[in-house]
């Protein structure tokens, strides 16, 4: 069998130059692969029909191949229908497992809960920072007051006495600040007893207090 360029006819029965003609060993013309595919897909222009009437080989082959494809389609359909019935439908399971994610209310509630958690956290953080800040402010005020007093010492006070008094005041202010910080650190420590409300009035945590003793 061989192929050669030739004129074929379109759906209106007019000849066109595209396509290749197929010949058998006897020199008889047959449908090309493309024409055969078109034929199987239902395209049957007049000249193809005429050819099928004349050419028994093409007619038999077309019937055989289209019949086989038809059998295949029918059996696969029966197989798939049986398979679809045998297999239980799991749509409900799959739907209920993830259905809650599809509701917009879930997402809104999630966002609100996150915002609430962040808000509470920020508020607690701010309240927690206040005592130390207050102690620091008090200490700074005390130091400033002492320095002002030092400047206004009565006449006759020596420079050394004045400096000693100022240093003592600064030390006192620093100790007040450290005590405040130490108190905050102790308050953060959670003990098993405190968790269950068993803590006595003054539970010693063992945290060492830091105290400044000199400049």
């Amino acid at each position: 069998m061989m192929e050669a360029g030739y004129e074929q006819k379109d759906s209106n029965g007019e000849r066109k130059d595209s396509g290749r003609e197929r010949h058998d060993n006897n020199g008889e013309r047959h449908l090309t692969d493309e024409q055969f595919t078109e034929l199987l897909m239902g395209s049957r222009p007049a000249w193809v029909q005429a050819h099928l009437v004349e050419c028994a080989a093409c007619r038999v082959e077309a019937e055989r191949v289209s019949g086989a494809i038809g059998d295949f389609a029918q059996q696969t359909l029966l197989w798939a229908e049986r398979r679809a019935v045998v297999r239980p439908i799991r749509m409900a399971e799959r739907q209920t497992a993830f259905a809650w994610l599809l509701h917009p209310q879930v997402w809104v509630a999630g966002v609100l809960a996150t915002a609430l958690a962040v808000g509470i956290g920020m508020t607690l953080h701010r309240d927690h920072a206040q005592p130390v800040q207050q102690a620091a402010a008090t200490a700074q005020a005390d130091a400033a007051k002492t320095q002002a007093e030092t400047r206004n010492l009565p006449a006759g006070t020596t420079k050394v006495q004045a400096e000693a008094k100022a240093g003592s005041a600064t030390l006192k202010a620093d100790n007040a600040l450290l005590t405040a910080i130490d108190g905050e650190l102790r308050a953060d420590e959670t003990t098993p007893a405190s968790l269950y409300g068993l803590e006595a009035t003054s539970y010693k945590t063992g945290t060492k207090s830091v105290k400044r003793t000199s400049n």
Partner: protein
Amino acid sequence: MIGCAMGETIQSELDDIEALDRMYRARLLRYVAYSTGDMDLAETVVQDCLLKAYNGRETFRGECSVYTWLAHIAGNLVRDHQRTRKFQFWRKVQKTGPDLSELSGVLPSGESSPETQILARERAQQVTVALEALSEKQRSIFVMRFVDEMELQEICQATGMQMSTVKTHLHRAVKAVRLKVGGRA
């Protein structure tokens, strides 16, 4: 995604997941099973496809048939599954193509004689064997055209391929089937 203007009939069809399953499961199962040659994958893909279509039904605007849309989704899901390493591993371990013996046990209704049924079964098996030798794209397009009887334009929509590409795959598939069935190709 294939775009679409939703008609009321189609909308109601998509709104009922059980109806969707009843109408399209078998057809999709056949398409995926004979396109991929993997029965287990077909089960999974069809399940996911119907669920995805139901959940995304608002994106369907009716510019194509529901089945074309479903086939498009199924095709994407097959590609997604095949990309995963898990699939690659299990594919090596267990090749689970549609069982030919199971298929050959399915006979058409008793309208034809036993001899005719046996002949039909043999011819169908020849086509199955021919398809196994094809690439997945060729098989898929062959099944869409000759088994699902989809138009070429619908196949283009479902696969995202150009018309010329679809025709080329189809020609090669038909040629292989002709050769197996005993034609002169």
